[in-house]
């Protein structure tokens, strides 16, 4: 029973709960066990089994009284960048040691209000800065997928899950959570979704509130759902989205019914294929999956059109100026004065220096330095201001494209998941992972990654659909068609299955998990 409970989609679980096939408690117990079972992946920083059971009990109560809420009893994982009241919140950084926020982020609060059950806080790149989950103070996350023998001969090294929402992606892919929240700044939902063979949706900037989400780059950060199906993404987004007066950048727009948008009908839809989305050295199999995706959509009645986004090549450099600039300022508050880590020094400046040197990892320090540099007097115009102009041009590229087409189809990432150390320690090589995800981030557009195929060595490859501002519904509809055509059903090598757990046997095991 419980094995099969972790194999359900969110939609199936919701329906099963409604029909009382199983209880929220049973569903929670199965997932609490699964969370424990996937510990080797290091996907969670904090597990919250007791909270999960309490929330499940409340959900069961409502379900029993016919007062079910949209996500009642659905166990999910939360990226540890969302502040959760009273629960350790780390941003995967040493500098937030012991930080338990006295408040709950708007997005998670909405999810709990909708009845969702919190399994724990997932690992990530420190402050969301990374594309491999290797920058976490709590250690790297392992991708539940491994290369198949016969690809690169004998290469069965552990792979990265992508980043920064690597823990969320791994947990969802390994069946430890029905879904998870992520945040996307330059690809942090979509790229790990692609690497782990799941669905990841970055909504339009302003669709989901950033209040209570620890900031990396404020003008780019956007929470979104990470799920195993497009329908699940629609369901989760429904409860995450909406205007929040506490976030001045959140959009005062009504939220449409996303699940209802999944009509499967994309006849007449014009799909743009941006010909700049080809990286030097990009494996041919990614190009092949892309062409295959276009063909699937064509067969469903859409019309693929080659288009051009001429400023694409400037997107990555612009992103790596704007995001660090904002980060350098956003991270100034981690000064050892009010919360988190403090390393004492002989004077104030020394305390700052020692605290921040000890508290921030190498990648965070690098971006703070870059950001401080590009905002400095004398360099501001040449870097920050110019990057903002590039950003405006990127947005214009998309706006022009959307006069010809309804959405865009492109690869999510220029590669499949790689092994730790495989790409060398050149940070710029790492930044290239974000090549295809950053443009939509800079333009604030909704974009979804859907697993569309597998590489020669058996790893998932994602395709992304990018839509007009606030057209998450259209993006989800097209993604649903792609998903149906791709029929991606494969399980990763490491899943939280293989253990039969009955409710009454769980008490001992739960004490351990909760201790």
């Amino acid at each position, binding site marked *: 029973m419980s094995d099969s409970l972790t194999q359900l989609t969110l939609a199936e679980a919701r329906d099963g709960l409604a029909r009382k096939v199983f209880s929220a408690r049973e569903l929670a117990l199965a997932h609490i066990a699964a969370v424990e079972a996937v510990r080797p992946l290091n996907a969670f920083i904090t597990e919250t089994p007791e909270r999960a059971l309490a929330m499940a009990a409340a959900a069961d109560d409502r379900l029993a009284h016919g007062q079910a809420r949209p996500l009642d009893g659905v166990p999910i994982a939360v990226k540890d960048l969302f502040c959760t009241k009273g629960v350790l919140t780390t941003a995967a950084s040493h500098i937030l040691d012991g930080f338990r926020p006295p*408040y709950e982020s708007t997005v998670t609060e909405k999810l709990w209000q909708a009845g969702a059950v919190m399994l724990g806080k997932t690992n990530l790149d420190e402050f969301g800065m990374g594309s491999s989950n290797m920058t976490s103070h709590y250690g790297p996350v392992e991708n539940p997928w491994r290369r198949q023998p016969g690809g690169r001969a004998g290469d069965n090294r552990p792979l990265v899950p992508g980043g920064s929402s690597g823990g969320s992606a791994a947990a969802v892919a390994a069946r430890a959570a029905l879904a998870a929240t992520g945040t996307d700044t330059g690809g942090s939902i979509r790229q790990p979704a692609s690497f782990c063979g799941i669905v990841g949706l970055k909504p339009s900037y302003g669709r989901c509130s950033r209040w209570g989400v620890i900031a990396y780059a*404020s003008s780019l950060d956007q929470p979104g759902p990470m799920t195993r199906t497009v329908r699940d993404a629609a369901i989760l987004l429904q409860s995450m989205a909406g205007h929040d007066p*506490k976030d001045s950048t959140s959009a005062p727009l009504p939220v449409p019914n996303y699940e209802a948008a999944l009509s499967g009908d994309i006849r007449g839809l014009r799909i743009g294929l941006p010909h700049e989305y080809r990286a030097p050295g990009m494996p041919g199999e990614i190009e092949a999956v892309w062409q295959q995706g276009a063909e699937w959509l064509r067969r469903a009645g859409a019309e693929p059109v080659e288009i051009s986004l001429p400023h694409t090549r400037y997107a990555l450099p612009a992103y790596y100026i704007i995001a660090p600039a*904002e980060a350098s300022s956003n991270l*100034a*508050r981690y*000064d050892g004065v*009010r919360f988190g880590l403090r390393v004492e020094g002989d004077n104030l400046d020394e305390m700052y220096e020692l605290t921040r040197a000890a508290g921030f990892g190498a990648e965070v320090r690098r971006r703070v330095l870059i950001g401080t540099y590009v*905002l400095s007097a004398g360099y501001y115009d040449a870097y920050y201001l110019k990057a903002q102009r590039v950003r405006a041009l990127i947005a214009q590229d998309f706006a022009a494209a959307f006069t010809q087409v309804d959405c865009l189809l492109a690869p999510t990432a220029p590669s499949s998941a790689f092994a730790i150390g495989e790409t060398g320690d050149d940070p710029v090589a790492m930044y290239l992972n974000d090549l295809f995800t950053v443009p939509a981030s800079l333009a604030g557009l909704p974009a979804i990654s859907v697993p569309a195929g597998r590489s020669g060595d058996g790893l998932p490859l994602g395709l992304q659909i990018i839509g007009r501002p606030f057209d998450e519904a259209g993006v989800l509809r097209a993604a649903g068609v792609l998903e149906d055509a791709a029929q991606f059903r494969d399980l990763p090598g490491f899943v939280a299955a293989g253990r039969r757990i009955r409710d009454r046997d769980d008490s001992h095991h739960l004490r351990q998990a909760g201790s």
Partner: protein
Amino acid sequence: MIEGRTGEWETVIGLEVHAQIVSEAKLFSGAATRFGAEPNTQVSPVDAAFPGMLPVINRHCVEQAVKTGLGLDAEINLVSVFDRKNYFYPDLPAGYQISQYLQPVVGHGRIVLDMPDGSTRAIGITRLHLEQDAGKSLHDQHPSLTYVDLNRAGIGLMEIVSEPDLRSAQEAGLYLRKLRSILRYLGTCDGNMDEGSMRCDANVSVRRPGGSFGTRCEIKNVNSVRYVMQAIEYEARRQVELLEEGGAVVQQTRLFDVGRGITRPMRSKEDAHDYRYFPDPDLLPLVLDRDWVDGLRAGLPELPDAKKARFISALGLSPEDAEVLVAEQAPALFFEEVAAGRDAKLAANWVVGDLFAALNRLGCGIERSPVSPAQLGALIDLIADGTISGRLAKDVFAEMVATGADPATIVEQKGLRQVTDSGAIAAAIEAVLAREADKLAEYRAGRDKLYGFFVGQIMKATQGKANPTLVNELLKERLAGQGPA
């Protein structure tokens, strides 16, 4: 002008005033702003810059800034932008201050100074922008530790920057007083410099008359008008002496040492911060609706300059009285209430003269005046209808100040009603002249000055209640020879 050894020097001053906005809540959070609260009791997670917290602009603070801009006769920018000013300090929790750098909410305006010689002088306002206050570092609570109080962190300030149009410490003083008066009229800042709700930075340089600007020094955070004037005075002389000795002024930030009356260096340009200003990505540009601004304009109170002009032209007051009355809103309102339907000049005399003197003695503001406008008006009415003489009115007023009683009650109780019975007055005159026969003889012999003596004696004999006009009339008649010798 400063007379140096080598000739005349002109002082050039520009002032930056930080005016705390009158508002229940902070600029970007809902925390309270009450002065003098226990440390760290008025701090929200936004003010303490906790992770994930976001600023939301307080509409009321924007309204206050726009009203102030309108009161300064300034351009209102319908689009303005909030920027981050980045620097590390423990009382700046986020590591940046949200301010407005390139696009402030208010642009060019002006303040008109009333110069001592009766002329006026317009001083340009460069800009007004909104920004957050920082918290307070307390260095005196512990031998080795600094404590931080974040109650003030995030409170809304208006930074009001003048053009370098001021030419003396005295003008700077006039400017600050006029600005404070306007802010208080508008209700946008209480102007209490001793509580820190209005603070001033002064940029001071000297030059030869008509020459190009000299290098300036900025004197930071001076908290009284008098200190600002002293600091400018000192700083200008310091610069003149330096230049006349062949030295050069170094651009630097200086502090005013209140105890010694001098300025001393705080930091020089070399270790000035690089604030790395950039638009705050947590906040959208501030976009104002023109109709909303026009509505605020229409609702502005009458400001001191307009009020002064009206008091002179419509009520016939002297410029001196008008200026004294309009300097603050409460006395002006008090005066207008007293003057309504009465002789305005007489009302002004009473308010500016007797009332202000009494308040001064009591050491209280006009809000706590023991005499209400209606009572003072009633007193003036008693003079006008001849119930009491102007002379007796002074006594009645003194009694009003002491007891708070109505003038009519005092007049009744003390029997101060004026004597207008010519028979009774004539009898008093006869009695006095009979008693002072010697003086009368001297008067007759040509000592005209004794006339006043007689009047005084007659008033004394009637306990001051005799109608002075009648006394004069009858006494003159009597001395002119009509009636008994």
